[in-house]
Structure formats: C-alpha cells, structure tokens
C-alpha cells in the first residue's frame, strides 16, 4: 500500500473503470446474439495489393470464445483491481491486459489466416509481458522468456503452415479453406503444412512436449493466470484445431496426432499435478491435462465430439478461472499457496470457500454442475467413437485426478480445523471474492437453465462438426443414462486419489530422473547449447585480429567471385576452350600498343613480386610504387591519359608521404609465427579468383550502352568535349563533391595526428 493509500477512493474508482470495456463488449455480444443470427461477417480492404483484407467471420465457435474473452475478462479485470490494489504499476498491467483482450478478440473473429497470425503473435507478446510482470524477480523473467520462446517458435511454425496452406488452397480465407476440405488431401505439401500447424497449435495450447512453459508461467499475477492461462490464451491452439477440424479430420495424420498427443498430454499433466505442493501450480498442471483432453476430443472422428469440445471448453473456463482466483485469494489472505500449510479456511473466508466449492463441483464433474454435463458428453463422444481402450482408461484416470485436484482445492484447503501460517486470515475484499463466485454460479446456472447455454454450445459444436445439425437441447439429444456408471467410477477413483494424495506425492517426488530427461531439461540444454554455439562461432569469426577479419572478408568475396564466374560461364557461349584464346599471344601479330601493354604488365608483375619478398621498408615502398607506375603506363596506352597522369602523380606523392613518415615506423619488426603459408595461400586464391572473373568477363561482349550515351550527350547536354571530365564534374557531380569531402575529411582527421606526432618527436628530441 503505497501512493494509492492517500486517495483510496479516487484510485478505486479509477481502476474500477478498467472493467468497463470488457463488460461493454460482453453486453454487446449478448445483444448481438439475441438480435442477429450467426454467422456475422464483414470485410475491409487493408492492403489490397498484397491480398490482405481485414476479413471477419463470427460463427458459433467464435461467439463462444468471445463470450469467454469478454465475460470472464470483465470479471478478471474487476478481480485484478482488488488483487493489485496498491501496486504502483497496475496501470501498466491493465493496459497490457486490454491489449491482450483485443488481440484475443482479433484471433477468434479473423477470417484471414494472416490476420489471425498477427493477433496470435500479439497474444504471445502480451503474454510475455504479463508473465514477466514482476520483472524484478528472476524466476519471473526466466518463465516469461520461456513462454515467449516456446510460443513464438510455435508461432513461426504456424506462419510457415499458414503460408503453405495459403499456397495449397490458393487463398488465405479460413472459411474458403474449410469449404475446400477433402480436396486438399491430394496435395503433397499438406503433411508438412499439417505438422507445422500442429506444432504451432501445440506450443500455444501447452501440449506435450511443449507443455512445460504453462506451469512455469504461474509466476504471473493471479488475474493473469486466471485469464490467460486457464480461460483464454492457452485455448487458442484448441480454437484453431477445432476451427480447421472440419477441413482436415478425414486425414489419418491429423486424427492420430491429435488423439495420441492429446491423450499423452492429458495423462502427463495429471500425473505431474501430483508432484506439486503449490496450489496454483497444481491447478496449472490440471489445466495442461484439460487442454490435452480437448485436443484428444477434437481428434475423435464422430460429430458428437464437437459438442463435447464446446461443452468442456466452456466448463473448464468456468471452473478453472474461479479456482485460480481462489488460489490468489488464499495467497492474499495467508501469504502462502502451499497446500501443506493450509487447512480449515472456510470460517475465515466464507465467500471464497463457497466459490471454491461451486467451482470444485464442476471440476470434479459432480451432478448439479456444468462440469457434469461436459464430462457426460465426453463419455458419450468416446463411447460413440469406439476409441482405443487405452484412451478410454486414460480419460478415466485423468478425470479421476481432476476430481482429486478439485478435492484438494476445496475440501483440503477449506475443510477441517483452522491452520495457516499467518496469525489472522481474513476474507478478501468484495472485488476479489465476487468474481470467482459469479463465474462459478454461472456454471451452476447453466445446468439449471439449459435454455441459456444450449443454443451457444450448439452453435459452437456445429462450427466444429458441421454434420451435427441444429441442437436445441443438449440433454435431450444425448441422454446421459448409459454412462452414469463411468462417472461413478471416476468419482470413486478420484476420492481414493484424494485420500492417498500425500503418499502419491511423496512417491512421485522421489523420481528425480524425471527432471533430468523431461522436456524442461531439453529446453534448458538447448538454451545453454545455443549460447555455447554462439560463443564458439563468435570466437571463430571475431578474434579481434585485423588479419582474421580480413581473411573472413576475403573468403566471402572469393565465394562471390567464384559464384559470379560460374554464372558468367553459364551465360557465355564458347566454354573453356574459347576463353583462353592463345592466338592473341603470338608476338609477331602485335601492334605497337600491345608492346606497351606488355611493358605495363611486366612492371606490375615485377613490382608485385618484389613487394612480397622485400622486407626493407624503403624498398617495399619503391616496389609498390612500381605497381602504380605499371598501371599508369597501362592507362596511358588504353586511351586514358588523364588517369595515367593522376596515377603517376598520386603514386609519386604517396611514396614521398610514406617516406616522410618512415622514421616513425622504425625498422621492420621480426614477427615470429606469422602464418606465412596460410596468408600466401589466401593471397593466391584471391588472385586466382580475380583471374577467373576477368577471363570470364573478357569472354562476354562489352555493354557499350552507357559509354555511347555519355559520348552522345556530352556535348549537347554539358557542353564539354572531354567526356571523362564531363562525367566527373557534370553528370556525376554530386559523387565528385562526395569525393572531395572524403579527401578533405581525411586531411582534417590526419592533422591532429600529425600534430601529436610532431609534439612527441620534439619532446624526445
């Protein structure tokens, strides 16, 4: 309680208003659902030249998600005002939460796949900021980075999948893609697209082996966990899978991947929930498990599964969000979430206890709750699909653990004699007690007033499984009588698991090898290796030595030269034989000009060879000057007298400047262990590369276009007869200005250095 204590009422009022946008969205959605039949669609040109449209399509599935995003969103925002009361940075949290909510809405209403991707990534980004909200805590930062890396890598896979799907179907409209459905199967690129798509969805929805980020993301503030990590964002993967299921469910790869990974995730999450003592992390693992169940259900081939997905999606959000809030309330009131220290809180926190029990009923799948309906539909769907016995038993086990977790979160924590670490536990403020209770009550109300929920669920189910037909009354279409025994067995097993929880926990805690080989360990290993590889290659490429950098640059250039020569070789007609026209070497036919060229070549070769072997500095300078003189002679006899005179002058001046500075350099040092052979090899290779390039260049016809243009334009446009001069001072005058600037700046830069040199010489002298 800091700054806000001064003006508590003003602060309260200010932050209460943040819940208004989601509430308004929710009411607008309800109004729309009553007055306008689904689907709603519309489209706005965004970047027509790129084929991008802001296309919107809202059907039952989208509407269901919208209801969750805005409805639970409004209550989460309200809850957060209580949870974060006094937190100086809560304005930032609400801003990011609002951006997140808008991004979520964007994902579920987008019809254009790239638009969907854009919002999808925005949810990953905001999730990163929210998980790392307590950024002064290192654990929090690590978790945020983990969530970002996992979901963003998945996002990249999703982008690739979207591009592939767009190529395959010839467009980016989701509805068009779904309509094409079975015809897609013929394309050989489809399996690759499917795998990438699955990776994208599985990372987002925390499916095995990408599940580990979700429990770690529990370092986020509780409202964030309740909103992002139970009700909305982690269900995006499920959303996209469910959305595309009608188009892809005839494919074996799709079905088997969803069923196997879903089952594995459900069981794995359920088992790992047993290893935790932190109530929030227990709930997180059970969320992973529930997401696995949803994936499995989407993979089931029969249309009844669509209804089960829609119902369980709703039920899970409606019981898990309140349970997270309950965990947050307990944390607030007692300062701990570790279940060993908590007992008998019902007296101190009656409202929270009531919310917990109502939500727990639903989570356990007890009668009178919406969870009961969902579990029922799941059983029916599986019975209809005639799934493998393994999957059947796995679900029973998973549901039993869910029941046990519900027991932990309610009976164990709130029942029994009072015991908690802090002296006085008290009920939290109404802003924290009301939201979980309201959400949990809605779940109960759905069971008693099926008329409210059934149309929405029916519409969502039809979007997932179009062959389902219109559903008015879920209970009537799927009588629950025949699976009641399954529910009873689940509850019985759940009760046993609840009673032996501590024993099981101790048993699982001792399995340490699980930590060493699990996906978490793999992730950490990968991260560590990544930095090591980066360090290794940085050390290899960037040694901090001039010759090293030059070597790598030259190697790159050499590769370019060889590539260019190869390209020219493909383009030129004569092939290798035509390149080397030996007949030009017959001295007898040479005109005088060629003898001059030969002189130039000899001068250059002599200078080059001498400069390589000479160690004396003055001699080295002279040898290098010989190279310059050689090229000047060549210029003189190839119609470039201006160049020749400049080169003569420059070369002479350079030797003079260098000779004047020579005393500062002293005698040539004896540098031992210089890699002479390696340098010579690289030098030879560079020379060979240039030779290759030149030989190929000479074999190509010269392009005289520009030369002709300058030759024709020189007099009429620039009134000059010396075409080279005209180019320099007129056509490319700005270039020349730049050149003069460079010359001037190098003089300006050299002046202080010269001054320093002179001063130190004077001091020594």
């Amino acid at each position, binding site marked *: 309680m800091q700054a806000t204590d001064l003006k508590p009422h003003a602060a309260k009022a200010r932050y209460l208003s943040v819940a208004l946008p989601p509430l308004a969205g929710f009411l607008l959605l309800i109004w729309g659902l009553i007055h306008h039949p689904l689907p709603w669609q519309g489209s706005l040109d965004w970047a027509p030249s790129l084929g991008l449209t802001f296309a919107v399509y809202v059907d039952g599935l989208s509407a269901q998600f919208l209801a969750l995003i805005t409805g639970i969103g409004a209550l989460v925002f309200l809850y957060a005002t209580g949870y974060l009361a006094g937190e100086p940075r809560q304005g930032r949290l609400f801003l990011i939460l609002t951006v997140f909510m808008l991004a979520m809405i964007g994902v579920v209403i987008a019809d254009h796949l790239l638009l969907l991707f854009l919002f999808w990534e925005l949810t990953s980004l905001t999730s990163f900021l929210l998980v790392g909200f307590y950024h002064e805590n290192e654990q929090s930062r690590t978790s945020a980075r983990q969530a970002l890396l996992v979901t963003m890598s998945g996002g990249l896979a999703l982008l690739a999948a979207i591009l592939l799907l767009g190529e395959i179907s010839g467009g980016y409209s989701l509805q068009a893609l779904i309509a094409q459905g079975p015809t897609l199967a013929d394309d050989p690129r489809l399996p690759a697209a499917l795998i990438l798509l699955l990776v994208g969805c599985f990372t987002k929805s925390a499916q095995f082996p990408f599940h580990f980020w979700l429990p770690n993301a529990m370092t986020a503030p509780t409202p964030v966990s309740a909103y992002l990590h139970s009700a909305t964002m982690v269900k995006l993967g499920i959303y996209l899978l469910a959305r595309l299921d009608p188009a892809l469910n005839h494919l074996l790869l799709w079905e088997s991947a969803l069923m196997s990974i879903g089952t594995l995730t459900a069981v794995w999450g359920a088992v790992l929930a047993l290893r935790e003592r932190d109530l929030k992390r227990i709930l997180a693992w059970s969320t992973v498990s529930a997401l696995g169940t949803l994936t499995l259900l989407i993979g089931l081939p029969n249309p009844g599964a669509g209804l089960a997905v829609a119902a369980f999606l709703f039920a899970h959000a409606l019981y898990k969000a309140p349970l997270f809030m309950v965990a947050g309330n307990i944390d607030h009131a007692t300062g701990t979430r570790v279940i060993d220290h908590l007992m008998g809180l019902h007296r101190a926190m009656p409202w929270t206890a009531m919310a917990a029990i109502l939500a727990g009923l639903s989570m356990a799948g007890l009668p009178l709750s919406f969870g009961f309906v969902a579990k029922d539909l799941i059983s029916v769907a599986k019975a209809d699909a005639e799934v493998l016995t393994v999957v059947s038993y796995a679900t029973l086990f998973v549901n039993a653990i869910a029941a046990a977790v519900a027991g932990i979160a309610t009976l164990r924590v709130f029942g029994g004699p009072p015991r908690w670490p802090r002296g006085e536990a008290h009920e939290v403020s109404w802003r924290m007690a009301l939201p979980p209770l309201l959400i949990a009550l809605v779940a109960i109300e759905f069971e008693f007033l099926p008329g409210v929920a059934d149309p929405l669920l029916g519409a969502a189910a039809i979007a997932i499984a179009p062959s389902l037909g219109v559903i008015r009354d879920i209970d009537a279409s799927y009588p629950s009588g025949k699976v009641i025994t399954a529910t009873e067995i689940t509850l019985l097993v759940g009760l046993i698991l609840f009673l032996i929880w501590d024993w099981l926990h101790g048993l699982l805690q001792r399995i340490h090898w699980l930590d060493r080989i699990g996906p978490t360990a793999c992730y950490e290993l990968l991260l560590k290796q990544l930095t090591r590889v980066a360090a290794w290659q940085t050390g290899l490429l960037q040694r901090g030595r*001039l010759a090293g950098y030059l070597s790598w640059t030259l190697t790159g250039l050499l590769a370019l030269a060889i590539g260019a020569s190869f390209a020219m070789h493909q383009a030129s007609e004569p092939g290798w034989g035509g390149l080397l026209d030996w007949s030009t070497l017959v001295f007898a036919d040479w005109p005088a000009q060629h003898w001059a060229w030969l002189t130039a070549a000899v001068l250059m070769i002599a200078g080059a060879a001498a400069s390589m072997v000479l160690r004396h500095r003055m001699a*080295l300078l002279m040898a290098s000057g010989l190279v310059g003189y050689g090229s000047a002679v060549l210029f003189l006899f190839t*119609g470039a007298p201006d*160049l020749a005179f400049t080169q003569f002058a420059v070369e002479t001046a350079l030797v003079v400047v*260098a000779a004047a500075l020579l005393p*500062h350099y002293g005698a040539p040092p004896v540098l031992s262990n210089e890699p002479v052979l390696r340098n010579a090899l690289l030098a030879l290779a560079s020379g060979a590369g240039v030779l290759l390039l030149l030989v190929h260049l000479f074999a190509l016809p010269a392009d005289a276009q520009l030369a002709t243009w300058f030759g024709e334009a020189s007099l009429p446009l620039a009134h000059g007869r010396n075409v080279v001069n005209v180019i320099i001072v007129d056509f490319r005058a700005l270039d020349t200005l730049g050149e003069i600037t460079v*010359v001037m700046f190098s003089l300006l830069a*050299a002046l202080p250095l010269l001054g320093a040199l002179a001063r130190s010489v004077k001091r020594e002298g």
Partner: protein
Amino acid sequence: MSLILALAIALTVAAGVYLALSRDLFRCIVGLAVLGSAVNLVVFAAGRFGPIQPPIVSAGAEKLAEHAANPLPQALVLTAIVISFALLCFSLVLGARLRQQSGSDDSNQLRNAEPLPADPVKPPVLD
C-alpha cells in the same frame, strides 16, 4: 593479350592481399595501396582494354567517335584513385601515431577495441 594483363592484375591482387594480411602495420598499409591499384584495374578492365584514342569529342564532331576509349570506367577509376590516395595518407599517419603510442608494429597487439575475453562463453564487456 588481355590474358597477360589479366594475369598481371591477378598477381597484383595476390601481392596486395598477401601484404594486407601481414601483422606488420606498415606492410599492411602498403598492401592496401597495392590492392587499391589492382581493384582500380579490375574496374577499368570491366570497360575492356581497347583503343588508344582518348574519349574526347573531336573539334567539329557532335559526339564521341566510334573508336574512342570507354569514358565511364575512366571517370570511376579517376575518382577512386584520388580517394584511395587520401585514405592511404591518412592510414599512414594513423599507423605512425598508433605505433608511437602502443610501441608495437604488430596489428595483433592492437586490441583496445576488442580486449581478449575473460570468460570463454560470454563476450567481453567494453568499458
């Protein structure tokens, strides 16, 4: 004939690279000068070694004669020669001052910008 010139240019490039790779600062700078001449020649060669007639529009003519040399590479190379001269002079002064300050001709010893890393994994931290 072009073949001999190509060979001469290639050898000059090799000599320039060899000198530039040297740890001796002075040789390194001379190497840059040699390499610069060679690269200028490569650019010039792109316009082909041809007629001895300079690219000047003769009196009375409206445009350049057919058999005149290619003016464009000449303009480019002329600029390059002057710039490389200026930069080489600067490099020579800089090298002299560096040597005076550090007392070494060995370019491997010049590590102010990139000190040797203390930790094999993390990159060095510059102050």
